[in-house]
């Protein structure tokens, strides 16, 4: 079975564009949640989000939907870092899996607005192709000439964690030698926010946006919607080693389960089984896990249920946990990839990123929190949890750079 190296990381979120901006914000515990500026929110109850700053949007052509532009930005960064042009792998052996929860929301929102509000009788001929869920995958494949295994992965908020796990399995199985894997979502439209308002799970604090998202806190009020993308360049470990390219980490394990339960109410059992599966797949024990980037949405239901799941797997071992959604918000299908990429960047830099806004943890969430401030720590292996509506769970185990490079190949 082939090992899977991470040789490129690309990320764009409310924390900024690129790895450097991301690490700076995660280390400082700085929130990127702010008032929405990309459209008029005057008559919305919720006027805040983890919006990608407007000045970061230069680059990919406007002809693409916003979620595809994010995917292209992140892929370009990953490809640049991984020196993809010199990778020496046939295009037919390179694939793309970009997960998305909601696809081309900007395009759909604008088109429906024309039809239903402005009574227009036609919409842009590119609307269908821009809005489709695989538009981002297709744009990335075209840009980098990837002609191998490629499709979009959809499992609500677990989409990009599934995409990264599946891409790793594709390389392990020998069906491809390199994969662009990650996720992108751009759900900050009038219609989508109205939909979330209807669910009554949004934290609305329009006056103090950076304080709104409070995972695991006793006074948490719900999630903050966000947008962005992260893409990893994954590569057959041996190929990366042979070409002498720096290995930034390794996808060590993947667990994926379904609750087969309630459509929006999460189950501790489904989450716990996914966590256990990822650990077993990495062929380690729970005590080898040095950090968990929690799903930690800051909804009442998720955080308490996720705590139960973690405790069920780790027992007495108080594994360090944080939710970086407290800073970048909940970027839907892009979340898993943003959190895997962000955690890897932070851990390779020698620190655990914090859960901010956590002054008073909820007793129902009594985990070993990395609260409010980053903690200096060397960690060999971490988990990233992602749990989507519909009971779709994906957990990815990632080995950090130093540990991945030290592990002998039979590992």
């Amino acid at each position, binding site marked *: 079975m082939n090992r899977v190296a991470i040789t490129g990381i690309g990320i764009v979120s409310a924390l900024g564009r690129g790895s450097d901006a991301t690490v700076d914000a995660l280390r400082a515990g700085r929130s990127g949640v702010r008032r929405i500026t990309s459209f008029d929110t005057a008559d919305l109850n919720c006027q805040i989000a983890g919006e990608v700053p407007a000045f970061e949007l230069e680059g990919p052509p406007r002809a693409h939907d916003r979620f595809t532009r994010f995917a292209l930005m992140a892929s370009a960064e990953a490809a640049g870092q991984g020196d993809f042009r010199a990778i020496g792998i046939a295009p037919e052996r390179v694939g793309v899996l970009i997960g998305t929860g909601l696809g081309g929301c900007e395009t759909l929102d604008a088109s429906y607005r024309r039809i239903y509000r402005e009574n227009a*009788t*036609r919409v*842009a*001929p*590119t609307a269908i*192709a821009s809005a489709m869920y695989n538009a981002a995958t297709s744009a990335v494949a075209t840009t980098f000439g990837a002609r191998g295994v490629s499709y979009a992965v959809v499992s609500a908020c677990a989409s990009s964690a599934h995409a990264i796990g599946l891409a790793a399995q594709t390389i392990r199985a020998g069906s491809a030698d390199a994969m662009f894997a990650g996720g992108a979502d751009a759900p900050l439209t009038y219609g989508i926010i109205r939909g979330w308002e209807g669910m009554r799970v949004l934290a609305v604090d329009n006056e103090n946006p950076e304080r709104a998202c409070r995972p695991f806190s006793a006074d948490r009020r719900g999630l903050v919607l966000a947008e962005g993308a992260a893409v990893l360049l994954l590569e057959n470990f041996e190929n990366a080693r042979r070409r002498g390219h720096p290995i930034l980490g390794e996808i060590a394990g993947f667990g994926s389960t379904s609750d087969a339960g309630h459509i929006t109410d999460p189950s501790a059992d489904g989450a716990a089984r996914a966590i256990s599966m990822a650990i077993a797949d990495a062929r380690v024990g729970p005590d080898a896990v040095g950090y968990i980037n929690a799903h930690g949405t800051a909804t009442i239901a998720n955080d308490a249920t996720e705590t139960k799941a973690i405790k069920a797997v780790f027992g007495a071992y108080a594994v360090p946990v944080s939710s970086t959604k407290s800073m970048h918000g909940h970027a839907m299908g892009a979340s898993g990839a943003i959190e895997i990429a962000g955690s890897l960047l932070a851990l390779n830099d020698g620190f655990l990123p914090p859960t901010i806004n956590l002054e008073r943890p909820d007793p129902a969430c009594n985990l070993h929190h990395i609260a409010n401030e980053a903690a200096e720590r060397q960690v060999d292996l971490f988990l990233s949890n992602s749990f989507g509506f519909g009971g779709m769970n994906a957990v990815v185990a990632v080995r950090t750079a130093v540990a991945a490079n030290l592990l002998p190949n039979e590992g």
Partner: protein
Amino acid sequence: MTRSEIAQTLITLVRKEKDIAENLLTPDTVLADAGIDSLDSLTILFAIEEHFKISISDTRARAIRTFGDMIDAVAELVPAAQ
């Protein structure tokens, strides 16, 4: 609107969607040869319909091969639209 006024407007609309030298857009120019693919032409037709507030039928649109055909299609509809 005269035919040459229509042509001039169409040149502007086409060039908004596709970076093509103005002197390459003559009535005889075959759109595909100028690098305008099928999705480009749909986007251009959409822009034309919006600009002139006209509706070009699918059948009529399918018959457009050259830039001259495009001018004809608009010229047929514009006087009626005004």
